[in-house]
């Protein structure tokens, strides 16, 4: 196989972003003439393998091993590096999930092969795929060039491909096994838990006023509160606002916060990092106010204002009263 898609287990189902990676593999595979395999491993390997074999790929590999039942970076990096060496795919595709961020760089270091991470787009250059990512606070796009031939690890940012486009088929299943040195696993994980969720469920909000670091300081939050009150909107924020303790965590929108899709998302002093954008880009109307005309969030805006939020917010509140 030319492309190996490595699946992530989400409680016995294939992780949404692994499905997107399969969709990506199918598109790139057909445009560049590359064959595809899928790797399912861990305690739910057989369930994931059953799900994966309904897709149009060449084969699905399943790998079970007692040392892979619980996720550890040591164990998973070791296992994936092993499989890559024995199966010899050119491209190894992952979703850019938190688990991949955690162990794929170690696979890269073990194999001394590049990990092109957080890829958002691809183009076909005479049969050779070329991958790009965002850089410099999401203001620029950069192509990532591997400097030599051999294995290339690639992770795709959420929504780079749509899982709606997955082609069905019937792949063959092959069970594989590897040796894992248990003494090399020096991490003992405990059970995952959720922190008491509190406050508002932003996912059903119609109107959202969302603030970023551009709001300047905690003392300015009441200004936003007043605006939200006259609009009848919920307040949301970017991560730095929560990190600074200006708002409780449940207000955060983005990859480590809530996903929202309101009728109006009014973004005040938010730059538009990809981790924020993935949480709000489904909003029906996006209004962006930012003093930096190059702020990347303007690219998603239906309406944009280049200006100072501290000047605009009080006037807007007054005009709406």
């Amino acid at each position: 196989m030319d492309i190996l898609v490595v699946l992530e287990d989400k409680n016995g189902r294939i992780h949404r972003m692994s499905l997107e990676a399969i969709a990506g593999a199918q598109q790139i595979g057909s445009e560049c003439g590359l064959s595809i395999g899928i790797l399912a491993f861990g305690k739910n390997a057989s369930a994931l393998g059953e799900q994966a074999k309904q897709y149009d790929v060449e084969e699905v590999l399943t790998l079970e091993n007692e040392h892979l039942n619980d996720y550890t970076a040591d164990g998973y990096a070791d296992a994936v590096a092993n499989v890559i060496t024995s199966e010899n795919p050119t491209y190894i595709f992952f979703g850019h999930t938190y688990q991949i961020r955690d162990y794929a760089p170690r696979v890269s270091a073990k194999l001394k092969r590049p990990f092109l991470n957080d890829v958002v787009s691809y183009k076909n250059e005479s049969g050779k795929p070329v991958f790009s990512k965002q850089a410099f606070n999401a203001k620029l796009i950069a192509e990532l060039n591997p400097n030599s031939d051999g294995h290339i690890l690639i992770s795709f940012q959420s929504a780079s491909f749509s899982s709606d486009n997955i082609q069905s088929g019937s792949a063959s299943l092959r069970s594989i096994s590897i040796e894992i040195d248990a003494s090399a696993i020096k991490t003992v994980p405990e059970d995952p838990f959720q922190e008491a969720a509190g406050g508002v469920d932003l996912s059903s909000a119609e109107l959202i006023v969302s603030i970023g670091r551009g709001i300047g300081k905690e003392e300015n939050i009441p200004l936003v509160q007043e605006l939200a009150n006259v609009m009848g909107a919920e307040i949301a924020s970017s991560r730095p606002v929560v990190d600074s303790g200006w708002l409780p965590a449940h207000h955060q929108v983005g990859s480590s916060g809530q996903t929202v899709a309101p009728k109006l998302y009014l973004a005040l002093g938010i730059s538009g990092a990809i981790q924020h954008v993935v949480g709000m880009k489904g909003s029906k109307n996006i209004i962006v106010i930012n003093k930096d005309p190059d702020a990347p969030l303007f690219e998603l805006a239906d309406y944009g204002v280049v200006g100072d939020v501290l000047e605009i917010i009080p006037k807007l509140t007054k005009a709406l009263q």
Partner: protein
Amino acid sequence: MNICVLIKQVPGSEAQFNVSGDGSWIQETELPYEMNESDNYALEEALQIREQKGAGEVVIVSLGPDRCQKVIREALAKGADRAIHINADAPYNTDPYSIASALANAVKDERFDLVLSGLQSDDLGFGQTGVILGEMLGMTTATLVVGTEVQEGKIKVKRELEAGWFQWQTMDLPASLAIQSGLNTPRYPSLKGIMTAKKKEIKKLNFVDICNVDELQSFAGLSVQHAEKQTEMIEGNIDQIVNRLVDVFKNEIRIN
């Protein structure tokens, strides 16, 4: 407990970028540079661990051109003990593997118990350097770390998972941890800190002398992002802007 903190200097989020003619890099002059955000949290975590344990050193390691001295001094002023500056001039290095390899060579004789790095750099955004360094030094690794508890010969860390989930894991030392923002409140340097920082040691190394691997990947064809949507830019004086916004709210988006 001896702790290494990786600190990178990056352009601030308000920086305006111009791509150089061949698309290989940005024009660096006159950009506002600052300490990478998550590195600031990593530094604070290191200082707090040392304060709890009462002993050991916090050593800053930074790779980049001369301008990095500014963030190094800032970290020393906040309380780090000494620093290693790996001087790397243009052409700028955009490969996390070779950066990590230079960092590994710079610290391999230091016997650190912990390496703390930021989760990812705001300019290159790999989120790989600290993990690769850990692998190279034979350490355990963890990313998205939002809490730490040092134990005898081990460290217990709280990791952020997706969708509001978390997980504790206990790891052998030495460990390399990539710190997620928000886990503590980074301090500001005190006046005394700023004064004493001037006398602290900054060891200087050269990237070309200590990087003994080839680059695995590099940036190419840098370009400006293209708009995904047709955007109506609302212009005018503040009153005109506010009036148009109210008009959009009421008549186009139709909020009540």
